[in-house]
Structure formats: C-alpha cells, structure tokens
C-alpha cells in the first residue's frame, strides 16, 4: 500500500528530535574521535594528520605507559569476575530462598550503587587516612601496628586500596540482576527438583544457575567492560597517583587531554577503549555460547 507523502513526513518528524540528539552527540563524535586519533592536535589550530603514529607511540611510550594502566584495569576485571560476581551470586541465591528480611537485605545491599562515586570515594579516602582513618585506627587497636599503611600514598598498596571500594560498591548491582533472574524462574522447576530429592545446593547448581545463564552473561560483560572504562572512583581516590601506580586508561586520557593538551593522543586512548570493550563483549558472548 502506498502511503501519502504527509505520512512519511510525519514519521520523519516523530524521529527528528531523537535523531538529532543521537547523530549529533553520539554518532558524529565517534567518527570525529576516530579521525582525531590519527592526528596531532593541541586543541587550537587545525589537527595535523599523522597516520597511526599515535597508536605506535601509545604502545611504546615509556612516559604514557599504557601497559601499566591496562594491567590495572585487567586486574580489576579479573577480581570483579572471580570475586565480586560469585559473591553477588551467593547473596542472590541465599536471598531468593525466602530468607527472613529478604527485602531489607536487598534494599541495603543495593544502596551503595545509588550513592555517588564521589561521596563513596571521599568516604574511603577518610577511611584510609593514615592517622585518623578507621582502617588504621582499627589495626592499631588490634595491636597490628605493623600492618598500618599510607594506603593511598604507598605505590605498592594503592591499587589494591582503590580496588576494594570499587568491588564493594557494585556487588549489590550484580546481586540485584541475579536475584531478579532467579525470581523470574517458574516455581515448578524448583519444586520438581525438590520432589526428586535434590538438596538446595544441588538445586542451585543444576537448576538455578543454568537457568540464569543469560543474566550471568550480562553481568560478566558489565563487570569487564565497566572495569575497562572505570574512572570515577580512581579519579576521586588517587587520580592515578602515587607516581602513576593507579593509572587507568580513563585517567590517562583525561590527563593527556587537559594537562598536556594532547587531543589526538587522548582520542587514541578513547578509540582503544571502545575497541577493547567491544572485543571483550564479543569474546564473552562467544564463551557463553560455546559452553552450551
């Protein structure tokens, strides 16, 4: 059926606001980032095209040291997948078994997700404060004076100190997703297994976890890509210091842009991050399909 021109015009008009926003603020800038990443540009004048030199410099430069930043986020991703997610799953499994006070626990565990990373970061800065912080005070009162550290100022422990609040904050998020998945299961599945004499542990292992596999996949993707992109907490806690020990790609990018005016190189890091996130998302999808 042929539709009149006015009908098509109306479709276009309905799409217009969204299209303007989407093309102007997302799609066009991505293309521009791609182009800038191939240029040397201080933000003023015109960008000078230099091919892939930025990429070469990024991976060879000692002063940028991207490998250290990547190592830091990979460590975060690894801990996130190996500690945070299993712990979140454990909480979700327990909570979904009709524990007393289920909704209260759920609400409390999820609360840190809603609080601004700046607030949480500032609180942890004070928790880590070498003289008056809760952590060192606690250690001293337990007689463990030798364990006290300048947590965020010692380059050997600073990264570890940054990882703890990040992992802590988002346990509740993953728990909520998994909990919702478990609650969405048809109850017959569990009942049947119970009638066959399965213990709750066996039900979790053989029924629940396989059932929420799609959600686990989403959680793993979020955990890994979120780790690669992580910025807020590190920026607040250390901004990459001490002596670049806690640098992550995002803080490197921001510092190259606004401290050294290297817009081309900043874009190169941005492009690298997007590609990395995309590749990891594909790999994780693939891994989850393979095992099936």
């Amino acid at each position: 059926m042929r539709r009149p021109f006015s009908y098509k015009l109306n479709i276009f008009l309905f799409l217009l606001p969204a299209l303007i926003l989407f093309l102007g603020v997302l799609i066009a800038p991505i293309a521009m980032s791609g182009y800038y990443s191939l240029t040397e540009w201080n933000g003023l004048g015109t960008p000078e095209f230099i091919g892939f030199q930025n990429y070469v410099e990024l991976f060879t430069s000692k002063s940028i040291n991207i490998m250290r930043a990547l190592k830091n986020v990979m460590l975060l991703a690894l801990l996130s997948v190996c500690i945070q997610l299993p712990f979140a799953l454990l909480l979700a499994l327990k909570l979904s078994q009709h524990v007393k006070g289920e909704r209260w626990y759920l609400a409390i565990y999820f609360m840190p997700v809603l609080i601004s990373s700046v607030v949480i970061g500032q609180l942890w800065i004070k928790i880590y404060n070498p003289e008056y912080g809760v952590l060192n005070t606690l250690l001293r009162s337990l007689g463990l004076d030798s364990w006290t550290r300048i947590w965020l100022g010692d380059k050997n422990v600073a990264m570890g100190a940054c990882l703890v609040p990040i992992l802590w904050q988002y346990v509740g998020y993953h728990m909520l997703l998994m909990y919702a998945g478990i609650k969405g299961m048809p109850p017959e599945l569990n009942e049947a297994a119970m009638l066959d004499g399965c213990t709750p542990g066996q039900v979790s292992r053989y029924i629940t976890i396989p059932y929420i596999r799609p959600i686990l996949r989403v959680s793993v993707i979020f955990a890994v890509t979120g780790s690669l992109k992580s910025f807020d907490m590190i920026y607040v806690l250390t901004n990459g210091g001490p002596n670049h020990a806690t640098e992550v790609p995002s803080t490197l990018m921001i510092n190259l842009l606004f401290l050294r005016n290297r817009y081309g190189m900043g874009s190169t890091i941005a492009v690298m991050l997007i590609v990395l996130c995309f590749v990891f998302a594909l790999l994780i999808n693939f891994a989850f399909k393979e095992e099936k």
Partner: protein
Amino acid sequence: MTRTKINQSDIPVAQQHRFKWTDVLVQIGLILWALICLFPVYWMFTFSLKSNEEIFGQNVMGLPQHWLWSNYERALNVGNMGRYFFNSLLVTVVTILITLGAAIMATYAITRLKWKFHKKMNAFFMLGLTIPIHAAIVPLYTTLSRVGLLNTYWALIIPYSAFSLSMAILICTGFMGDIPYDLDEAAFLDGCGVWGIFCRVILPLMLPAVSTVGIYTFLQCWNELMFATVFISKDVFKTLPVGVQSLSGQYTTEWGPIGAALALATIPTLIVYVFLSKQIQESFIAGAVKG
C-alpha cells in the same frame, strides 16, 4: 493421600526445620554484609556532626557527643552546597524531560507507524547502549567550546540526554507494546491522524514508562562525574559530584563540614530510594536484562 500438597512457600519452611544451624549462619553472614554496606554511610552521618577534636580524638567511630549542626550550616553557606544541589536538580530534570519527549516520539514512529525500515532504525538506536561516554568526550569538548556552550547547563543537558536516549527508547518500546493496537484503530476511525492518536491515546497511557525512564535517567545524571568535571569549571554551574569533589580538595583538614557536604549530596538520593526502592530496582533490572 497422607502427603500434603507441596507449594512454593512450603519448601523452604521444610528446609528451615532440617537445617536450623546453617540457617543461623546464613543470617549472620547476611547481617555482616549488610553492616559492611551500611558502615560508610553511618560513619559519614556521624562525623558530619562532630568537631575535629572528636573525630581526631578518641571518638573515631562512635555517635557524636555534641551534635554539631553548624557543620551543615557551613557546608550550605560557605561550601555552596545549595547551589550545587540546584544545578544538579535543574540539569537532571531538563534532561529527563528532553529524553522522555524524544524517546516517546521516536518509539511511536518505530513501533506504531508502518514503514519499511522501522526495525533497522530501532537497531540503530540500540547501538547507543554499547557506546561508552569516552567515545565522545574529545569531540564534544571541542565542539562545545567552539560554540561557547562550555560552562553552561546545556553542556551537560545535551550529552546526558543523548546518552540516556537508547535506554529510554528500549524501556518505552516495552511499555508501548502493551498498549492494544485496537485503540489506535478506534481513534483512527474516529478521525484522528497520527498526531491525534499520539497525543490522545499513546501519551496518556505511557505514564508508567515515564516513571521508569525518569528514575533511570535521574540515576544516570545525578551521579555522573566525567562529563561534569570536563565540561564545567565555573563554580556556579557545578553539579553535586563535581562540587563535592572540589570542596573536599579545598578543605582537606575540616572533616566535619566535608562530612556534612557528603551527607547533603547523599540525602536526596536516599530519600528517593526509601520511597521508590522497588521502582528504582526495577528500572535497573529493566536496563540490564533487556540491554
């Protein structure tokens, strides 16, 4: 027939009788984690009411001996928290309105109007779900600075709206799918055009989506840090996260007022959470499960 029919709620009860002591252990574990989640917030509220003498003296973790409300006064007056709060509120509300408007209109065109490429258009918008904000930060910064929009509310409202759009369309698609098509047809037979159907049939029935999209967008914008630090450097336009961050940098030794500032930044979110915890959790789930 001695065996009673087993229904959902009977099963765990039966187990509770069998594994009494593991149940206690589970409860202890759950309470412990709850305390770990609550502790930083508890600590924030207590030191926000203490003087430096108390914080740095013997009373590091206890309740304040003298409740020092003047910390809050100082955070509001000297620290400018009221201004930051207003900025955050304004940016968030306008972002929600723009996102909702654009998303509902686009969703209407994609799901209710008949044309060739509506599926492709939807897939195109869904690309936005996977794009990190890093991808756009340099071009946005240079463009905003060229057109003189850096250090204005628009420098945050426009990017926030664009980055919330894909999720908003996704959520709206779900809700609009629940509206029966018969209504469109009936309205059409009554002589409504596409705009008439949109305004009189679809919009009023999209109210449930408004709260989900609104909550989701609120949580995205309210705590956003990267754009807000990069695009805003003038104090009068700073949002809460950036304002709190710069305050903490200025007054590193005065814990009380900083604690009060942190608490002031957190209280609105907590109040909203107390009243809308279920909707907030659902909007997060909707965001993740479909994405």
